[in-house]
């Protein structure tokens, strides 16, 4: 299976690549995208800073060199939905893309991957679509977790769910810490999702959007409420 990590930064891409490259039968590519309207100088400054921040920049540099030498590190200089970028992505003939960039995917990009692009959404689908879903789950007394599904151009409406993992919010002091932890589950869950996709007895689950709602950015008032709930349950759990 040919898999491309679609990343907003090289170090971000390698964080996920490292987790999945050990899977037998998986060939990994890292696609470093140009996110937003950043200048080249800004983009590369950020890349260097984020590499240095990892404190493992020597290892990272060695990995970058290894991937680049084998043609597995692709740096896109144009936005992802630009025709030249799409052509480059198509030429890789990947089966699956792994979302790790802050970009919106349009149909031509999605269809450049044989099976599609996987997203690790930090909420339980189909119930919680959209933004701040971890917070909304807590506010409504429901379990938190991550859903890995194949995206479509809509907001968390892709019809095929690969896996869902319930991850309790107990023990996390505030929303920021909880969300950081949930976001950091992406590499592990992408690995699990790829393993599932490659297994013979696997079947996809349907993301029936009529069973859920779309959520939006949460107000400061409700975020405070969620932080208080987390602090309370943190004490209870402790």
């Amino acid at each position, binding site marked *: 299976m040919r898999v491309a990590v679609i990343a907003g930064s090289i170090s971000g891409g390698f964080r996920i690549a490292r987790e999945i490259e050990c899977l037998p039968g998986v060939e990994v590519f890292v696609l470093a995208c140009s996110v937003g309207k950043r200048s080249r100088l800004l983009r590369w400054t950020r890349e260097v800073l984020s590499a240095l921040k990892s404190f493992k920049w020597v290892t990272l540099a060695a990995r970058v060199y290894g991937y680049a030498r084998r043609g597995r590190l692709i740096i896109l200089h144009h936005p992802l939905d630009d025709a030249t970028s799409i052509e480059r992505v198509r030429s890789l003939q990947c089966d699956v893309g792994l979302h790790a960039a802050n970009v919106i995917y349009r149909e031509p990009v999605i269809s450049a991957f044989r099976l599609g692009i996987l997203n690790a959404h930090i909420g339980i689908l189909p119930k919680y679509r959209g933004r701040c879903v971890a917070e*909304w789950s*807590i*506010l*409504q*007394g429901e*379990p938190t*977790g991550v859903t890995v599904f194949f995206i479509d151009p809509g907001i968390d409406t892709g019809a095929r769910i690969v896996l869902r*993992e*319930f*991850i*309790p*919010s*107990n023990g996390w002091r505030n929303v920021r810490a909880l969300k950081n932890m949930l976001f950091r589950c992406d590499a592990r869950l992408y690995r699990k999702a790829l393993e599932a996709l490659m297994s013979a007895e696997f079947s996809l689950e349907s993301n029936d959007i009529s069973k859920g*709602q*779309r*959520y*939006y*950015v*949460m*107000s*400061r*008032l*409700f975020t*405070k*409420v969620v932080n*208080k*709930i987390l602090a*309370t*349950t943190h004490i*209870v*759990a402790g």
Partner: protein
Amino acid sequence: MDLETVLSRPVQLDCCEGILRGALLTRRAELRKSWRRFISPECLASLGALAKEVETLLSGEDAFRDWRFAGAFGWMDCDASFADNLRAIALAHNFEHRPSDAAPAQLCLGAFNRLPRDERTEFLYDRYRCPLNIGLPSETDVAEELLRQLMVPDRGKLEAGTEFDAEMVLLKLNLVGVRAMVTRDLRYLDALNYFYELPRRSLMRMRSNPRLHSFWMCIYSQLLSTPGWQKCALR
């Protein structure tokens, strides 16, 4: 971890209900003191006879009217205009409404969004002459679209300080607020929370329509005073 394991350690719901209620009442107390910063004396004066009632509702004791019954009713008709009915709801008064013989046809969202601005506004005023109808299950698609528009493009324009259609935004805020009153859906209440928290310079531009501006503040005030949000959300 499976669902069963997670649910065996449920979040303490009673405690959550208490925290939420406390936060809403604190915001209500804040609004009681701060509403004059949103509704200027000129804005209040332009309301005429209404000014006193708006002032009483916003500065007075916590007041709200329970409109949940309307969600279980069918379509309702009114003789009074949208503005009069919205005023009654905003000021926690009752108003005359009766079951309708025939509900209007289901709205096609695509066609609605393609209407020119004035026709869209007119359409909303006309369809929701009895504003409680926005709380009906049959109106879910329209209400969701209004919520989406408020929380995505309109919010974006207000936060960026770019031009926005104040009357349309106010109309949507009022309808979304009424939907929250009928359905007790926390997402609809939170849209009003979010707009209340926007930088004041953004909200100042909404003074161009003092009536709709005061009404959404009054509806918001009632929503903050309403108990039992979480129990309703979990039903």
